[in-house]
């Protein structure tokens, strides 16, 4: 069997998975909620822009305006992270288990298709959908902030790449869970791991504020279990490298220090490792 044939089978599975994901109500609900949030956020930015035209010593006003604008962008990117993460859990939790339960998988796997190819195809299809959603949603928030309150963002393509990568660890986790667990249990597992990453970021932030290395280490360890929050922090650090509030850990769950490039490498390995695990577990399972 040639690599080309493997690629074509993975692409076929990815294509059907993507189409199936796009027609599900959870995605429609996520898009509607995102549009609702963007409308509210745009309105908020519009009025914030008016109130930010204050008077005073030139340097102080400029500093205040920059920090207020950064704060507004942080606020905007927090719900996007939450919504994209939840979409990853709901879209991915039943991707294998529901097809095993319904019997759809029998028709596919009696074909000359390796189970690993099916798992990778499923991941690629869902990852593509999430990547487009994350890019559009986060891009819209950043665009609105730049347009309305002139946030001085830097490295936005790299930051957007981090935000696109952000839900992938969670997707890979629920995909691995789906290879063995029932859909509901797997969904709960996904939300729990998101919680671990979120609370871990909070602990790390508090640890940084009170200069407690134990808490900081606990936060870092939680990031190893779920590196989603670390990727979000990395994206913010790229967007606003000099953000004062960021350095103090101004937003819950955003981490207290800038994650290194190694954390990004770790997140990519985390995704690859879990997809490999999913393929291995699913390949050995009786269906």
């Amino acid at each position, binding site marked *: 069997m040639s690599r080309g044939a493997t690629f074509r089978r993975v692409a*076929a599975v990815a294509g059907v998975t993507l189409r199936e994901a796009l027609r599900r109500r959870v995605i429609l609900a996520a898009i509607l909620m995102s549009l609702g949030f963007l409308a509210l956020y745009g309105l908020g930015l519009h009025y914030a822009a008016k109130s930010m035209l204050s008077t005073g010593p030139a340097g102080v006003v400029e500093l205040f305006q920059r920090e207020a604008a950064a704060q507004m962008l942080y606020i905007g990117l927090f719900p996007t992270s939450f919504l994209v993460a939840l979409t990853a859990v709901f879209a991915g939790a039943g991707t294998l288990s529901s097809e095993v339960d319904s019997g759809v998988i029998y*028709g596919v796997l*009696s074909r000359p298709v390796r189970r690993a190819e099916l798992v990778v195809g499923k991941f690629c299809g869902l990852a593509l959908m999430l990547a487009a959603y994350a890019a559009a949603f986060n891009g819209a928030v950043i665009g609105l902030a730049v347009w309305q309150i002139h946030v001085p963002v830097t490295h936005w393509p790299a930051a957007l790449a981090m935000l696109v990568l952000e839900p992938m660890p969670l997707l890979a986790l629920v995909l691995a869970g789906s290879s063995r667990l029932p859909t509901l249990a797997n969904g709960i597992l996904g939300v729990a791991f998101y919680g671990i990453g979120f609370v871990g970021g909070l602990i790390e932030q508090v640890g940084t504020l009170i200069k407690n290395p134990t808490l900081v280490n606990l936060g870092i360890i939680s990031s190893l279990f779920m590196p989603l929050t670390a990727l979000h922090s990395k994206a913010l650090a790229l967007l606003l490298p000099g953000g004062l509030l960021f350095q103090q850990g101004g937003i819950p769950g955003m981490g207290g220090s800038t994650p290194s490039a190694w954390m990004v490498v770790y997140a990519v390995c985390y995704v690859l490792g879990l997809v490999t695990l999913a393929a291995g577990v699913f390949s050995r399972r009786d*269906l």
Partner: protein
Amino acid sequence: MSDTDLVIRTDDLTKLYGSHVGCEQICLRVRRGHIFGFLGPNGAGKSTFIKMMVGLHRPTSGTGELLGKPLGDFGARRGVGFLPENFRYQDWLSPVELLRFHGRLLDMEPAAVADATTRVLADVGLSQSADEKIRSFSKGMQQRFGLACALLSDPELLFLDEPTSALDPLGRAEVRQLLLDLRERGTTVFLNSHLLGEVEQVCDEVAVIDHGRMVESGSLADLLSGPCEVEVLLAEPASGAAEAAARVGGRLLTAEPDLLVIGLPDEESVPGLVEALVASGARIRSVSRRKRTLESLFLEVTGEGRHE
């Protein structure tokens, strides 16, 4: 029977789920170009066996070959079609879209997929519904579509797990004819069905499985021919029937006032039996050979008849 004639060969194939037996020591030979009936009561292990054949379950022990390749071989599945018992497909797609997807999984050229799609949908009578969503199909139409999907690659070996369970009598007759046509084209069909009358009409060979073990197998003709038993309808009770039967090497099995059932060594003994009965004073209305049905064989070998 040479190995090249065989499309399925299993030796002591066993599947255990902990202490529960799925299939145990199944030794089976299925010849190319035949329709093979695989029978058994509910929970006997038929679907487990098929799932091992198509790579959905891994055997616990034993060996097997499919199309000359070891079980689980990835390439062998190229020559196999499968209609599962609980058939379900991505019902939000149309038949054309879903067959295109399966064609891509089979690595078929787009033009070949288009040709095959036209052919298989015509074979199962769904040409008019090619672009409707599968979701809108009745259960019978979905089963027909499942059959079309299994036939897409023009497989050498077709596994059908209860392929007519959702069809009306007309649909069943059409599928029976389709199976006979497939046999004409050289396709081997492995048919798992509860409909014994249907199996009897189309199958060349059968195997019966019960509690995970194979309890009977062979050509349908041999299995149904069985021992030679004749029914003798009498005008009035006869007294010397047992002696008359013994005179031709037979045995009186049932004696009722107007009916005798006599087991004979072979069919050649029937004229002698009639002469002996007449000589003993019996007044015979008719003599007929008892026909063994697949149902009676099934009930006999699975022990189901004992409960009745």
